């Protein structure tokens, strides 16, 4: 049967929500069945479109959290109070509902195990989402290949309760994860408790001589600060890929 879609053309489709998972008090994962899904790469996103009865449209981009190996598409959405789209996705949408999406989108902020490593991931808040797809992809790779690609993650969050995918992160990184809590840290918190700075990056990252591939995702101020610091530490700017998250 001939396909209605033209290859290479990005079209809107109605996905079905097949599962929802609360990750934190403010973040929720939506698992979608997208009928004509061509597969994706770790780091890509989809556009989501909401249309009101009066025709008003709101469109946002959400990173894919699931690895390319999975047929279903998982998005993790952080609720931004008083925003147009995320409260609907986090509070209203239910299993069985339809959601208009188009994707996968993006070819710059992507990583594949064949590109090698070491892989340095730096996340701020919900900026962990596309990096999670990379970690899950890494975990699915053949053990001999995976063993040659070490991964480290530095994750900045406001508080321990704001850390998304906490348990899975510890497992996937085999302990190679450092958390920094910028607002509230428990009294016995053993990790960092400040914004990411040069000393922290020097401790967590590999030296520039090992040429790690760095992926930095989070709010614009964090992304610009971290990428500037990494370049100052001698990392080649072309090995430091960034994606800025805005309020949604």
């Amino acid at each position: 049967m001939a396909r209605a879609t033209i290859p290479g053309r990005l079209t809107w489709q109605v996905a079905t929500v097949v599962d929802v998972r609360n990750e934190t008090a403010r973040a929720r994962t939506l698992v979608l069945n997208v009928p004509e899904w061509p597969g994706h790469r770790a780091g890509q996103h989809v556009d989501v479109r909401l249309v009101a009865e009066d025709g008003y449209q709101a469109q946002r981009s959400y990173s894919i959290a699931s690895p390319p190996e999975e047929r279903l598409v998982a998005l993790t959405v952080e609720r931004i109070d008083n925003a147009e789209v995320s409260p609907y996705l986090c509070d209203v949408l239910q299993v069985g509902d339809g959601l208009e999406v188009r994707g996968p989108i993006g070819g710059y902020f992507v990583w594949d195990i064949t590109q090698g490593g070491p892989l340095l991931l730096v996340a701020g808040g919900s900026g962990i989402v596309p990096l999670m797809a990379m970690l899950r992809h890494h975990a699915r790779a053949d053990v001999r290949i995976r063993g040659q690609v070490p991964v480290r993650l530095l994750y900045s969050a406001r508080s321990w309760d704001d850390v998304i995918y906490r348990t899975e992160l510890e497992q996937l990184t085999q302990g190679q994860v450092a958390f920094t809590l910028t607002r509230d840290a428990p009294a016995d918190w053993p990790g960092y408790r400040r914004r990411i700075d040069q000393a922290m990056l020097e401790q967590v990252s590999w030296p520039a001589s090992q040429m790690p591939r760095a992926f930095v995702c989070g709010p614009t101020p964090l992304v610009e600060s971290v990428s500037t610091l990494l370049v100052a530490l001698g990392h080649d700017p072309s090995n430091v890929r960034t994606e800025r998250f805005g309020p949604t």
Partner: protein
Amino acid sequence: MQAEEMRLDGNAAAGILRELFATDVTAAFATCKGCGRAGPMGTLLEYGQGMGVILRCPSCESAVLRIVRTPGWLRVDASGISLLKIPDQ
């Protein structure tokens, strides 16, 4: 809201760029007509997501690409790009 918090990057414009191009161009190299910087479209700075987007050069802040959606028309001003180099796969 701080201005810098509203500044995104070319990755956020990837969807609207895919309405123009048959392939993803966020990894394509755009040379800025203003200062000559060449870098992936994904590294350009994006402003505004209402009626369209403006992608600016991170070095000289010139508008490299403007895309505006008006009723019935997608208007594209690419005069800030002197060369676009797209991976040929």
